[in-house]
């Protein structure tokens, strides 16, 4: 058993409070703490508008907290965020952009590329390797707008990989993707997590508890981290998050796939007998 100090966290929140009203009420997060360590896959779950994406933007330094401290790779996020690969929802990009898949991935290489109109051969090789790693190399010259939702998401993951990101931050990576492509994408992420850390925002509890090593829930200004082995019982989830799960929650049977935290903290799947169909409301943003 090692007696050395535990590894420094890659991402760390200490007493973070944030409000879009500049601190004048309307707190989305209040006193949030979080540590994310190397090799972990952290899933952030919670209702839509509950602050999941805000949390990711805080971690990347795109938003500044009114109180508390955030560290990314041990420093201020603005100084180190280039070491993280952010994968927004594919829908965040305009499908009309005049660019093909290779152009999109190459844009992730900009920091390493020299000035001038063209990328170097090594940049092109790296971009093609990244496209290959996510399984869409065949579509490298296809316009971004003509790709399917799953293919676009893979292209954006390739853009994050092409700069050798040490941490992947994915915002709802499976939104708008059919179940088969969703499973393929999650398998891909599991493979990528072998040599980098992953933080994934999702409102799908099954994805969170089946594929993450830790799960944190953003809800009612709280940020609560849980181990997934063993996973919390349904009663614990109800008590902690106010989110009601069907009986046998986190049993992870193939048949219970698709349970999602709804916009108000409830689940989108039909409630079973005796279940509460409406969970407590979220804060909203």
């Amino acid at each position, binding site marked *: 058993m090692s007696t050395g100090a535990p590894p420094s966290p890659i991402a760390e929140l200490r007493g973070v409070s944030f409000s879009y009203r500049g601190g004048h009420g309307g707190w989305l997060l209040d006193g949030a703490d979080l540590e994310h360590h190397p090799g972990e896959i952290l899933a952030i779950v919670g209702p839509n508008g509950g602050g999941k994406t805000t949390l990711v933007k805080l971690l*990347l330094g*795109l938003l500044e907290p009114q109180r508390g401290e955030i560290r990314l790779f041990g420093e201020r996020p603005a100084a180190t*965020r*280039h070491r*993280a690969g*952010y994968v*927004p929802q594919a829908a*965040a*990009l305009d499908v009309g*952009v*005049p*660019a*093909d898949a290779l*152009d*999109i991935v*190459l*844009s*992730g290489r*900009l*920091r390493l*590329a020299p*000035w*001038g*109109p*063209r*990328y170097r051969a090594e940049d092109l090789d790296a971009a093609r390797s990244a496209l290959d790693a996510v399984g869409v190399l065949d579509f490298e010259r296809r*316009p971004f*707008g*003509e790709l399917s939702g799953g293919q676009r998401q893979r292209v954006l993951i390739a*853009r994050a990989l092409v*700069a050798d990101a040490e941490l992947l931050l994915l915002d709802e990576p499976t939104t708008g993707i059919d179940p088969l492509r969703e499973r393929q994408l999650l398998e891909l992420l599991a493979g990528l997590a072998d040599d980098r850390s992953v933080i994934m925002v999702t409102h799908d509890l099954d994805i969170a508890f089946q594929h993450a090593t830790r799960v944190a829930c953003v809800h009612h200004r709280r940020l609560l981290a849980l181990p997934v082995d063993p996973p919390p019982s349904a009663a614990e989830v109800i008590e902690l998050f106010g989110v009601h799960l069907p009986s046998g929650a986190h049993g992870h049977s193939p048949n219970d796939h698709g349970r999602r935290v709804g916009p108000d903290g409830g689940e989108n799947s039909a409630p079973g007998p005796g279940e509460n169909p409406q969970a407590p409301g979220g804060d909203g943003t």
Partner: protein
Amino acid sequence: MSFFHDMAGNPFLWTGLLAGWLASLACGVIGPYVVTRRLVFLGGAIAHIAVGGLGLAIFLRYRFEAVFFWLEPLHGALVVSVLAALLLARVEPSRGGQGVDADTWIGALWASGMAAGILLIKLTPGYHAELMSYLFGNLAFVDWPSVRLMVGLDGVIVAVVAIYHKRFLALCLDAEHLRLQGFSVARIHAVLLVLIALTVITLTQVVGLILVIALLSLPAAIAGRFTRRLAPMIALSVAISLFLTTVPRLAVYGSKISPEPAIVLAAGLCYAAVLVRDRWRRAR
């Protein structure tokens, strides 16, 4: 054919044609960024604010002739349009909501710049015939100093785009991702707006400040209907601009129709034709 016949005896036909080609290069290169980043309204604002520079140059030359005898209205328009670009860069779209409404800010500068220009011209005695040339274009009387200025501006535009193209493309694709890589989105956006200001000046004598917006956007918008990548879009946009500044000019030569509005109307008709073609194809 009388146009080519007359060229031998009328050097202004040469300079007019050259001015059209030089303007085509500038708007063909910058237009695709303008259209992709949805900066057409901003480009229109820069062009109209430049009227303030025209008025300022005319006023200064009259009031302080001993000092500003060399000052041409286009010089004033150039300086003011660049300053306007730097001011407008402060309302970079992704920063909207930080206390200033981008749309209102652009509209305020657009109207105020133009009003200042009109006021300064009113304060300057005499009839300023050249003003109409800058407002509505004047391809019939482009002089060599103007051509030389356009060559210089084209040189700057092409050189900066060659250096910045990858950054401009990344800005057009996903400004947030560009920021996450450690680049200053505000600075790159400001460089792009300054290039738009320079392009506005190259277009001034071809279609006039009032109609600049047409050549700044339509050739690129037409090109965007034929290609889905930025680099080919730039090449095609330059070719379309060359066509638009040359063919209508030759077509109306010798008639009562002015070439400047003919160029703009041709651009509008071509864009409409491409839209109709696309709709027809989708319906089939």
